[in-house]
C-alpha cells in the first residue's frame, strides 16, 4: 500500500515538474511564470483541483514516442476565485512549447464541457507555440474541437482568455471567440501569420511585437480588451474582473457588500458640463462619481476613446457602463466606437448585467473613411445591440444628443427603461447652426437674420423639455442627484422581465 501511495506522489512530482528545471528557468528568464504558478495566483489558495494530470499524447511519428510528458503541455482543472467556481486551463510552454496535440486539446474540451454543464466561467491562459506539427491534421482537428466548445459556451458562461506568451496561427481563434482577451505587455503576442510568413508573402518587415503585441491589439486592432505589465499583475486584475461577472447566463450579476451611500450627493456634478458648449469635459468623472466606491473596471481603455465601456457596481451589484467621451473626438460615434460598444452591450445582455448609458453625442463621424469603412453597418451593430437587449437599461443624457446617434444611444425608442436628462441636455436632429442652414437656406447671405434664426432654434430645442414633453425623456434630474436616481432606477428594475419574439437567432449586421 505504502509503495502505491509513494508511486502516486512520484508520478505527481514528475507531472508538476513540467518540462524540467532548465526549461522552467528559461521560462522565468523570459519574465514569464510557469503554467502552475499562474494557476496558483489565479485561484484561491489551495482551491485548485486538477484534471488529467497523467494524460499523455498518442503520437508515434517523428520520434514523438520518446518525448512523452504527463499532462501533455496543459494544466486543467477547477478552483475558486473569492469562493466562486471557475474552470481553468493553463498551457505549459516548458512542455513541448505548449504545443496543442489531440490529447492536449481534449483536456481543454473536458473542462469546457464541465463548465457549460455546471455553469461556471472558463479562464484560459494561453502560452503555446501552436499546433503540434508532428501530429499533423489531428492537431488541427483538435483545435476545431476547442473552437466548437468556445462557440457553444459563448453566452452560456463567461470566457476569459489571458495571452501570456505566443498565440499564433489557428490558435488565435479560440481566444478570439471568448468574451474578453487580456495580454501581458512585452511577453505576449497574437497573430494569424507570423513575421516570417509576412515577409515572404508581402515583403513587409515587421517584428512580432509590432505585428501582434499587446500595444497593437489594445490600441490598433482592438482584438484585446486590456494589457498589463506582467503575469502577476494581469492575474490579479483578472481576479478583480471576475468579481464583476456572473457565473453563467442563468444567474444574476453578483452582489457584494458595499460601503457607499446609494443616495450620495455629488454637488460638483452640477458644474461638470461647461458653460461653453464647445468645451470638452471628462465623462469618466461622472462614471467614477456614480459608481460605488469610485470603482470602475474599464474594458478596451486604449481603443476608440470616444466611447467608454466597463463595469461598475451600484448597491454592490454589477452594472455595465457605456458612455460617450467628449474628451475624444467630441464623443462622436464612429466605426470603432460602435463596434466596441456593441460588443460590450451584447455581453451585458447575454449575462443579465444591467446597462447604464451616459450620453453626450454630437452624431456619427462624417467622412469618406467612415463611409468606405462601412459605418452604416457598424453603427447598426450598436443600434441592434441596444434594441435587442432585454436587461435593465437606464440612460442619462448630460449635454447633447443629435440625429441618428440619439436613437442609437439606448433611447426610449429602443426600450430604454429609464431615460433621464440633466437640465443641460438637448435632444435635436442636429445642432442649431446646421439646422438653420438647411431650414433657411435662402437667408444664408444675411448674417443677422441667420443669427436670429439660430437663437430661435436654440431657444426651442436646446433643452431637454421638448423631448420630455413627448415622453422621450422620463424625467429631468439634477446632476448632483444622479447616483441616487440611477441607483433607485436599477433597484426598481431588479424584477424586470422582457422577452424578444422567438427566433433561432437574430441576424445582427456583422
Amino acid at each position: 500500500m505504502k509503495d502505491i501511495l509513494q508511486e502516486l506522489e512520484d508520478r505527481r512530482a514528475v507531472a508538476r515538474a513540467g518540462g524540467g528545471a532548465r526549461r522552467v528557468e528559461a521560462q522565468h528568464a523570459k519574465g514569464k511564470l510557469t503554467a502552475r504558478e499562474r494557476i496558483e495566483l489565479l485561484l484561491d489558495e489551495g482551491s485548485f483541483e486538477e484534471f488529467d494530470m497523467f494524460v499523455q499524447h498518442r503520437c508515434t511519428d517523428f520520434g514523438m514516442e520518446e518525448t512523452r510528458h504527463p499532462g501533455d503541455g496543459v494544466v486543467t482543472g477547477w478552483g475558486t476565485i473569492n469562493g466562486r467556481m471557475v474552470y481553468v486551463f493553463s498551457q505549459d510552454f516548458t512542455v513541448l512549447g505548449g504545443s496543442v496535440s489531440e490529447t492536449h486539446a481534449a483536456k481543454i474540451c473536458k473542462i469546457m464541457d464541465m463548465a457549460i454543464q455546471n455553469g461556471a466561467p472558463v479562464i484560459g491562459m494561453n502560452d503555446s507555440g501552436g499546433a503540434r506539427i508532428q501530429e499533423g491534421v489531428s492537431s488541427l482537428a483538435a483545435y476545431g474541437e476547442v473552437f466548437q466548445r468556445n462557440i457553444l459556451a459563448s453566452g452560456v458562461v463567461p470566457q476569459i482568455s489571458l495571452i501570456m506568451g505566443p498565440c499564433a496561427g489557428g490558435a488565435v481563434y479560440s481566444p478570439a471567440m471568448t468574451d474578453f482577451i487580456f495580454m501581458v505587455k512585452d511577453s505576449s503576442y497574437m497573430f494569424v501569420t507570423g513575421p516570417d510568413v509576412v515577409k515572404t508573402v508581402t515583403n513587409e518587415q515587421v517584428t512580432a511585437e509590432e505585428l501582434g503585441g499587446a500595444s497593437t491589439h489594445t490600441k490598433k486592432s482592438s482584438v484585446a480588451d486590456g494589457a498589463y505589465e506582467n503575469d502577476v499583475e494581469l492575474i490579479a486584475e483578472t481576479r478583480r474582473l471576475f468579481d464583476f461577472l456572473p457565473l453563467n447566463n442563468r444567474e444574476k450579476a453578483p452582489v457584494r457588500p458595499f460601503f457607499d451611500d446609494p443616495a450620495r450627493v455629488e454637488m460638483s456634478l452640477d458644474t461638470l458640463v461647461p458653460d461653453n458648449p464647445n468645451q470638452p469635459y471628462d465623462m469618466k468623472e461622472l462614471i467614477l462619481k456614480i459608481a460605488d466606491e469610485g470603482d470602475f473596471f474599464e474594458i478596451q481603455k486604449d481603443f476608440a476613446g470616444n466611447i467608454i465601456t466597463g463595469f461598475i457596481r451600484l448597491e454592490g451589484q454589477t452594472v455595465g457602463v457605456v458612455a460617450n467621451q467628449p474628451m475624444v473626438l467630441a464623443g462622436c460615434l464612429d466605426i470603432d466606437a460602435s463596434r466596441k460598444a456593441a460588443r460590450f452591450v451584447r455581453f451585458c445582455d447575454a449575462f443579465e448585467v444591467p446597462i447604464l448609458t451616459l450620453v453626450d453625442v454630437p452624431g456619427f463621424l462624417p467622412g469618406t473613411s467612415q463611409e468606405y469603412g462601412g459605418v452604416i453597418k457598424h453603427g447598426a451593430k450598436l443600434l441592434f445591440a441596444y434594441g435587442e437587449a432585454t436587461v435593465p437599461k437606464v440612460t442619462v443624457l448630460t449635454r447633447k444628443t443629435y440625429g441618428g446617434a440619439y436613437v442609437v444611444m439606448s433611447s426610449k425608442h429602443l426600450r430604454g427603461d429609464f431615460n433621464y436628462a440633466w437640465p443641460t441636455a438637448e435632444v435635436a436632429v442636429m445642432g442649431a447652426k446646421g439646422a438653420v442652414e438647411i431650414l433657411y437656406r435662402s437667408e444664408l447671405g444675411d448674417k443677422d437674420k441667420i443669427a436670429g434664426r439660430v437663437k430661435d432654434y436654440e431657444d426651442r430645442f436646446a433643452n431637454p423639455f421638448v423631448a420630455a414633453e413627448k415622453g422621450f425623456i422620463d424625467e429631468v434630474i439634477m446632476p448632483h442627484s444622479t447616483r441616487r436616481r440611477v441607483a433607485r432606477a436599477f433597484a426598481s428594475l431588479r424584477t424586470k422581465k422582457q422577452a424578444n419574439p422567438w427566433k433561432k437567432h437574430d441576424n445582427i449586421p456583422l
Partner: protein
Amino acid sequence: MFKKILIANRGEIACRVIKTARKMGIKTVAVYSDADRNALHVKMADEAVHIGPPPANQSYIVIDRIMEAIRATGAEAVHPGYGFLSERMDFAAALEKEGVVFIGPPSPAIEAMGDKITSKKLAQEAGVSTVPGYMGLIADSEEAVKISREIGYPVMIKASAGGGGKGMRIAWNDQEAAEGFQSSKNEAAASFGDDRIFIEKFVTQPRHIEIQVLADKHGNCVYLHERECSIQRRNQKVIEEAPSPFLDEATRKAMGEQACALAKAVGYTSAGTVEFIVDGNRNFYFLEMNTRLQVEHPVTELITGVDLVEQMIRVAAGEPLPFAQGDLKINGWAMESRLYAEDPYRNFLPSIGRLTRYRPPVEGKTAGGGIVRNDTGVYEGGEISMFYDPMIAKLCTWGETRAAAIEEMRLALDTFEVEGIGHNLPFCSAVMEHPRFTSGNITTAFIAEEYPEGFNGVTLDGAMLRRVAAAAAAMNRVAEIRRTKITGTMDNHQRRVGDDWVVSVQGEAFPVTVSADKGGSTVTFAEGTSHRVESDWTPGQPLARLMVDGTPLVMKVGKVPMGFRLRVRGADLKCLVRSPRQHALSLLMPEKLPPDTSKFLLCPMPGLVVKINVAEGDEVQEGQALATVEAMKMENILKAERRGVVKKIAASAGASLKVDDIIMEFE
C-alpha cells in the same frame, strides 16, 4: 455702522471679508468677471455685479467698473482685499470723491508708503531702523572703503541701474570693498551704461519678519505682534507663522514700537503691515510698509483673537479701537500653509483645470486640542482659471506651542483632499517634516538651500514607513475579507483570507502577520515588532483615518493593482500588499523602464492642426503651448511635458492627423 459694503476682490480674500461682514450684520456685494461667474465669492455674497471679461485689467482693476457697481448697489464702503486695487491711491481718491468709505488707510498714507525711497526716508525720520547705506555718488575705491567702514562689514556693493545680480559684490573687509567697488563699477558701465554705485549693509542669515499694526481715526495705534514669513520660493511666500521662533521680547517690543511710530508718522489708519529684514544677530531693518490687509493675516488673528477685517471695518466707520497695546497678548502658535495650484513635481508650474475633488479638513477645534482654519475661495467642481493668482486657499492651524501647531498642520495637510489639478500640498507637508524647519533655524534662503534641485517628493523615514506599512496591511485585510463576501460562492468552500502578507513600499518589502480582533488589527513584522492599527476605514474611502499605536495617521488612499496608492506626509507611495506567494513570484517579473516618448509630441486624437506655436530650433519650457489641434470643433492645446528644444516639426497648420501621428520631435 455700514449697512452694505462692496468687496472689490475675488477668491479667498473676498470670501474672508464676506464672512466677517455677515457676522457683523452687514450686507455684501461681490464683483465678478466672466471667468468667475460661478465662483465661491459670488455665491456667498448677498449681491453680485458683473464687471467685465476675465483679464483683471479689464475687470477687477478697472476703477470705473467698480464705481459703477457701487452706484448700482448703493454700497457705503469698499473693502479692497489685497492685490488688485488695494494699494492704488487713485482708487481711494475716487471713492473719497464719491463719498464712499475706503476700508483701508487714507490715500496720502498709501502714496507715502507706495514709493520705496520716500517710505525709507519717512521711516528714518520716524526713528525706524533702516538698512544702513550710502545713496550718494561714490568717487573712488578709497571713498568706497571709508563708507563701507562706516556702515560696518559685510556690505553689498550694487549698481544703481543693476538687476539680476549683475554689478553686485559682497565685501567682508577693506580690500574686498576696494576691489568690489572697482569691478562693480566696470561691470555696471559695460552692462547698463551707467556706472553709478551704491553701498549698503549686507544682511546675513536674513529672515522676513513683519509687524501687524492697527490704527484708528482717534490717534490710537497698536501692534499685533509679528509674523515670520521666511519660507519663500522666489519671493512668493509659502509658509508663515506667528509668532516668530526667533524674536525675543525686547526685539519684538522694539520692532512693534517702531512700526507704530511709522504708522503714526504717516497718519495711518486701518490695518497695515511693516516688513522688516532681520539678521542672525536680531538686528532688524525696515523694508517696506504694506498699506492693506496681508494674505497671511489669519495667523495673527489666531494668536491674538482679533478679527482684523472686523477692526478694519469698524475703524473705517469711525469707531475707536476696543483694546490698548497692553491687552494684546500672544496666545499659542499659529501656522499657515498657502495652497497654490502649482505642481511641485513640475517645477511649480501653474496648474489649471477642474477641481474634481476638494475637501479641506474640518474647521474648528481638533481632537488634539488645536484649531484648524481654512480660508478658501474655491469649491469642489469649481474651475481654476489661468487669469488669476494661483493661490486658492490658506490652511492655518493653531496649537499651544510651535511643535503642537506644526503637528496640527501635518495632520491637516494629510487630511486635505485636492484632486484634478497639480498643487503644492505635498511640498508644504515636506517643509513641516523638515528638521531645519522644525528647529526654527530658517532664513529666506530656506527653500533655495534645502531644495536646490526643486522638489522631488518625500522619502519617509523608517519608523513612519512601518506605520504606513502596518496600516496598509490592516486595510488590505478589510478589503480582502469583503471580496470573499460576494454572492455565488460555493457553500462550505469559501475562501479564507490568510494572515501572512508582504507589504512592498518605497523599495522595501516587509513580511507581516495580521491578526484581527474586534477593535482593530495587530500587525507583526518579521523581526517581532508589532503595531496596533485601529480604524473604521472601509474599502473605497479616499481618506483613511487611522490610529497606529495610539497616534493618528491620515492617508489619502487610491487603488492600484494588488495594493494602494497612499499619500501621506508629502510622500506619494505605491504600496503593494501581496500574499507571500504573490510576492515571491513577483520577484521573477522583469523590471520595466517606461518607454521614452518624451522626444515626440504625438497627436492625442484624430483632428485638424489649427496652429503650431513654435518653430524648429525653439527652446520650449515645460507647460508651454506647442500646438493646437481641433477635433469635432473643439480646440485642444497641446503642451510641452518638459523642457526641450524643437528639432523638427512634422505637421503644419491645416494638416489632418490620426492618433499618435508625430506633430514634432525634440532634441
